[in-house]
């Protein structure tokens, strides 16, 4: 019985996933790209052709069969670096996203659900964080901490990127909070914690996930930005540090465009892929935004009807 119940549930989830991708090219393209990039990162040791941290050739070798994406000024293999860099960059971005969204959910939901004084205070803090210019703050903080490894950047990005999400979640929680199913759960005697976790949170999944992706994109860009400004740890292999080295070795001037463009495009494609997924998620939470294949059907039928009526 339970088993049957479970498999039905799985089938439902699967069906939902399929429905999400069906006739939704942005979701498909985004999902595909993201999967490729994730796989590249996960299986970096398998795909990498060289040790990313070792000098393996003369400086600035153009792309060739041996060095698929060329080598850096330091004679390191760009392809292997971009794979291993993905690990670092994505870990930073995803962890920062998780930290930020956790704070955002905690603050947003508490603020929206409990209301009153708690809400006033949390909302105030959120707004203060919101108006404080984040990037300069990051730059200064990064400089303050001196040696900024990826861990520090992760934490910094995580603890500074939550207010926007918190605000959206708060608004949504407040909307849900007054829905009758919450009141009826309260009247029924559900505990507050359970109401938050079981009754409210599942309704916020798409918002939280959307916010998470947004934060990941942002964190990835910021990590790269801090890296380029020289505020990251240049000895780690990440996309940010790759760009940094490409920058300091003036790879663009010396014609070694691959050293700069490869990590730049890696960043661009990851950001783009996540944005496409995010856009598709938007369509799930707001069906009005949905632009599906049914519109094509509609266009065809409309044309036929107009013809029948003798309109152009």
């Amino acid at each position, binding site marked *: 019985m339970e088993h049957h119940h479970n498999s039905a549930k799985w089938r439902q989830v699967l069906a939902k996933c399929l429905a999400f991708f069906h006739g939704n090219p942005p979701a498909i393209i985004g999902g595909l790209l993201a999967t490729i990039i994730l796989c590249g990162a996960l299986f970096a040791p398998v795909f990498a052709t060289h040790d990313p941290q070792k000098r393996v050739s003369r400086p600035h070798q153009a792309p060739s069969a041996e060095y698929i994406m060329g080598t850096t000024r330091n004679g390191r293999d760009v392809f292997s670096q971009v794979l291993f860099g993905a690990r670092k960059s994505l870990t930073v971005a995803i962890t920062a996203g998780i930290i930020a969204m956790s704070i955002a959910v905690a603050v947003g939901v508490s603020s929206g659900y409990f209301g009153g004084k708690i809400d006033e205070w949390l909302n105030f803090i959120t707004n203060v964080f919101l108006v404080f210019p984040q990037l300069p703050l990051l730059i200064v903080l990064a400089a303050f*901490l001196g*040696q900024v490894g990826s861990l520090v950047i992760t934490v910094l990005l995580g603890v500074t990127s939550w207010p926007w999400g918190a605000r959206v979640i708060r608004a949504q929680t407040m909307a849900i909070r007054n829905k009758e199913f919450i009141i009826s759960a309260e009247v029924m005697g559900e505990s507050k914690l359970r109401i938050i976790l079981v009754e409210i949170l599942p309704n916020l999944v798409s918002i939280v996930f959307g916010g998470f992706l947004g934060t990941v994109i942002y964190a990835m860009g910021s990590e790269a930005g801090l890296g380029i400004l020289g505020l990251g740890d240049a000895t780690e292999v990440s996309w940010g540090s790759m760009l940094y080295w490409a920058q300091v070795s003036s790879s663009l001037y010396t*014609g070694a465009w691959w050293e700069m463009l490869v990590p730049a495009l890696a960043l661009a494609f990851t950001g783009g892929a996540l944005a496409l997924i995010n856009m598709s998620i938007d369509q799930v939470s707001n069906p009005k935004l949905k632009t599906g294949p049914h519109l094509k059907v509609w266009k065809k039928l409309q044309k036929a009807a107009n013809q029948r009526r003798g309109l152009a």
Partner: protein
Amino acid sequence: NEVKQGGTLTVPIIGTGFVENYNPYTSKDLLHGVMFEPLMVFNNMTGKTEWRLAKSAEYSDDLKTIKLTLRDGLTWSDGSPLTAKDVAYSFTMTKENGAFDQRGIWTDGNLISIEATNDTTVEFKLNQADSTFIWNLEKYHIIPEKVWSKVSDLTTFTNPNPIGSGPMTEVKYVKTQQMELCRNPNYYLEGLPHLDCITYRSYNDNSQIQPALMKGEIDWGSNFIADIDNTFVAASPENHHYWYPANDAIHLYVNTKEAPFSDLELRKALSMALDREAIVDIAAYGYPTVNFNAGGIGELYSTYIDADVTAKYKDLTTYNPDKANQMLDAAGYVDKSGDGFRQTKDGKRIEFDIEVVNGWTDWIQVVQMVTEYFEEVGVKANVKTVDWAVYDSSLKESKYKMSINWSLVATHPILAYQDYYSSSRIGKTWHGGHGVHSPEIDALIEGFGKTNDTAEQTDIIKQLQVFSAENLPFIPLFSNPTWFQYNSTKIVGWPNAENPYVQPVWYDGGKRVLIINNLHLK
């Protein structure tokens, strides 16, 4: 063969932009040797003293008095006379304004007084004999007493309507991105400068100077340019040139007060594990000069380097991993755990960080290569990039295990040794934290200033080289290049390998003034 007069020299300045501040002490190196003429220039390239405003200087026999004689008929750019009183004022003024006391002549208490004895002579009186004191004098700006003595707060004084004695004293304009200084109508050297003006342009960093140089927007670069042959030179092989003579020597400083570097054998082995030529070639584009001198000084001081010492300790700086491995084995550092890295005699893995400043990328690359060579001999080292404030304090307070660092650039190598070994400098400079000191060496260094006898001084320098090579408190790597690119499309007269009349350092006012006076239109 008449020299053409006129023309404008354009030079890059890394900074945020220009403001109307002609106080040479607070305007960051912009004006020395341009608007303000030095008294003299100690030319380390030729070993000669080039007399500028001063025409001579003499020590008394007890080395406690210096009599400085100015040229006759010197004038300020406004035409008024420049006298010994101005010179005396220029020095005494820094007593109250400590921030201007560039060389700290007043701080150690050795200087008693400075007096103008007549219109052209100034006398410096010292407590104790110091034959090196005179080297300080070229760094101070000579300024008109009539203007400066009337200002109440010199630190915030911006010296509007500047009066100077250098080749370019007339301010044509100052804009945020650019400023232009033009020739001094009353320059003391007949027919000089040949150029009309110097234009300063502000740039953010090297990466912007590179295209500017390539495009010929600037004539004189003093910056790191990546892959210079393929970029800058290739853009116009006829006229785009560079010359990178040796500058300060770069060493890996080690902290000999702690294991494992307390062991001289280990230091020696590590030194022999490095292929300096490869490092220079790859990590530094081949621009630096490899430093095979174990004596602590590099090619910058080539005239002082003792060939015998270098030859004797040649092994220490020659790449020889086999020998290094043998030495390490013999000293008891073996890999018992089988992870490819050696342990100390008591079984602890040898692993240390090499500190380097975050953002000093050329050095980071060097250190990365160094770690690779150390790995070859089974020694585990990590690159640790730190903020310079951390770097600064660990060097000064001797908190590092290994750190890449330069040695002092000075008029004479004795000053560099002073920084390395004088126990009075421990904790004050970046060079004395390695832990190798002794009273004998202190005395040896002290002795240098007490004599004016060249032979005696040469011997002291030789002894110091031997001491360095035997103790190896730092592992020499190479000498930094003096970054110098020039464009001869319009302007010629540049120093270069064929005509090395001066080390081509832009930021040294003394050297700068020599070059500016030598440049002229093609």
